[in-house]
C-alpha cells in the first residue's frame, strides 16, 4: 500500500504539491491526469525518493520513504519507475540493460538474471531483440525495454510517468498494450498519462491534478461521466 499524507513540495518559490493526500491499495491501478505543471510527475519521483519533500510523509508498505533511516536503494527495489524518456543504457545490449540491476542490486547470478531478463523481454514482445543495442530500437521498443527492465526487479509497484508522451503516435499503441497487460495481471500501478481513453479503460480510479492540488478522484465512469470540479470539466472539454 502506498500512503501519501499531506505532502508538500516546492521548487524554489513554486509550490508544485500543495498538500496531497492519497492512498493506493495493492492491486489497484490509479491513473493521474492533469495539465502540465500540475505536479503529477513530481508526485511519482517523490514516491520513490528521487525527490525530497518539504513536509508530510509517504509510506510504502509502512516504510516512510523520506525518513533518514530508510535505505532508499532497498526500497526502490519494490518500486519500478518508467519515465517519459526511456533512458536505455546505450552501451549495453537490450539483454544487458535488463540484466544489469538484477545482478548489481538483487545479487542474482548471471544465469538467473539472464533467464528473468529473457522472460520479461518476451513478455513485452522483445524476445527477438536480445543482442541488439538500444540505438537500433524504435522509441516504442525502447520504452517497452524500460518497462521490462523495471519488471525484472520483481517490483510490487510500478510508477509510470507519461511513458507514451515522447513517442510517435503510431508507437503509442504497443506501449499501452503492454501496460494493459500489466494491469490485467494485477500489478499495482500509478500511471501519469495524457491518454484519456487508456485511463478510462484500465483504471480503478482516476485522479485529476490541478496546480499542485488533487482536485478530484473517482472511478473512471464517474470522473469522466460526471466531473464535478470545474477545472476538470474545462480540462476534459479541452482534451476531447
Amino acid at each position, binding site marked *: 500500500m502506498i500512503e501519501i499524507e499531506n505532502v508538500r513540495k516546492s521548487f524554489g518559490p513554486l509550490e508544485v504539491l500543495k498538500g496531497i493526500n492519497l492512498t493506493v491499495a495493492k492491486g489497484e491501478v490509479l491513473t493521474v491526469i492533469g495539465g502540465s505543471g500540475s505536479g503529477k510527475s513530481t508526485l511519482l519521483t517523490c514516491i*520513490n525518493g*528521487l525527490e525530497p519533500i518539504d513536509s508530510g510523509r509517504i509510506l510504502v508498505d509502512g516504510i516512510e520513504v523520506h525518513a533518514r533511516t530508510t535505505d532508499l*536503494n*532497498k526500497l*526502490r*527495489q519494490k*518500486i519500478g*519507475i518508467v*519515465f517519459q*524518456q526511456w*533512458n536505455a*543504457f*546505450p*552501451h*549495453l545490449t537490450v539483454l544487458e540493460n535488463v540484466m*544489469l*540491476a538484477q545482478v*548489481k*542490486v*538483487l545479487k542474482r547470478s548471471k544465469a538467473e538474471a539472464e533467464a528473468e531478463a529473457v522472460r520479461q523481454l518476451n513478455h513485452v514482445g522483445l524476445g527477438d531483440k536480445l543482442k541488439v*543495442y*538500444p*540505438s537500433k530500437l524504435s522509441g516504442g521498443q525502447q520504452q517497452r525495454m*524500460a518497462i521490462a*527492465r*523495471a519488471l525484472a*526487479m520483481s517490483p510490487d509497484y510500478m510508477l509510470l510517468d507519461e511513458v507514451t508522451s515522447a513517442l510517435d503516435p503510431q508507437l503509442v499503441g504497443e506501449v499501452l498494450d503492454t501496460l494493459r497487460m500489466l494491469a490485467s495481471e494485477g500489478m499495482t500501478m500509478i500511471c501519469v498519462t495524457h491518454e484519456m481513453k487508456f485511463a478510462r479503460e484500465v483504471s480503478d480510479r482516476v485522479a485529476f491534478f490541478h496546480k499542485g492540488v488533487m482536485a478530484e478522484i473517482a472511478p473512471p465512469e464517474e470522473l469522466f461521466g460526471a466531473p464535478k470540479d470545474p477545472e476538470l470539466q474545462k480540462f476534459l472539454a479541452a482534451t476531447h
Partner: protein
Amino acid sequence: MFDTALTTNDLIFLAKGAGMTLIVTAISVFFGTILGIIFGVIRYQIGPWWAAPLTFVLDIFRSIPLLIQLVLANAFVTTVLGFRVSGFAVACGVLSLYTAAYCAEIVRGGIEAVPQTLRRAARSLGMTWGQDMTSIVLPLATRVALPSWIGLALGVMKDSALVYIVQVVELLKSTQILITRLQEPLFLLMICGLFYFLISFPIARFGSYLEKRWSND
C-alpha cells in the same frame, strides 16, 4: 651519395633514449590518469564552489610552462627540502601532476556528458551511487573522453622532451648529444622524429580502434 658517421651503437643509444621517453611517459600518464580521475570526480561531485581551491591548484599546473615547473620542483625538492632524489623521480612526479591537471578536466567533461536522466534511471532501479558510477557513468564517460585522453597522452609524450632539464637523458637529449658529436643535425632529427612517430602511432591507432569498437551503440 649518402654518407653518415652514425654507427649501430649510436642507434642503440638513441633507442635507449626513446625507451626513457616511453618509461617517463608511461609512468606519468598512468599516475596522472589515476589522479586525474580522482580529482575530476571530486570536482564534479562537490560542485564548482567547493572545488575552487582544487581547481586553482590544477590551473597552476596547467598554466605554468612545464620547463619552469621542472626546474622549480627540482630545486625545491633537492635544495629546500634536502631530499636526495633522482632527476628521473622529479620528472615523473612533475609530469604526473601536469597530466593529472589536464586529465581532471577531461574526466569532469566526460562525466557531465552522461545524461542526468540515465543516472536517475539507474538510481531508480535501486543502484547505489558507486554502482551507477562504475556501471553507467564510467563506461559512457570513457567513450566521450577517450579522444581527448589519447591527445593528452601523446602531448605528454612530446612534452616529456623537457625533462632533460633535470638531467634525464631521453630521446631528444640523446639526439642532441649525437648532434654535438656528429654534426649531422637534420639527419639525426629525422631519425629522432621517426622514433617519436614509432611510439605515438600505435597509441593513436589503439585509440581509433577503441572508438570504432564502441561505435555500435
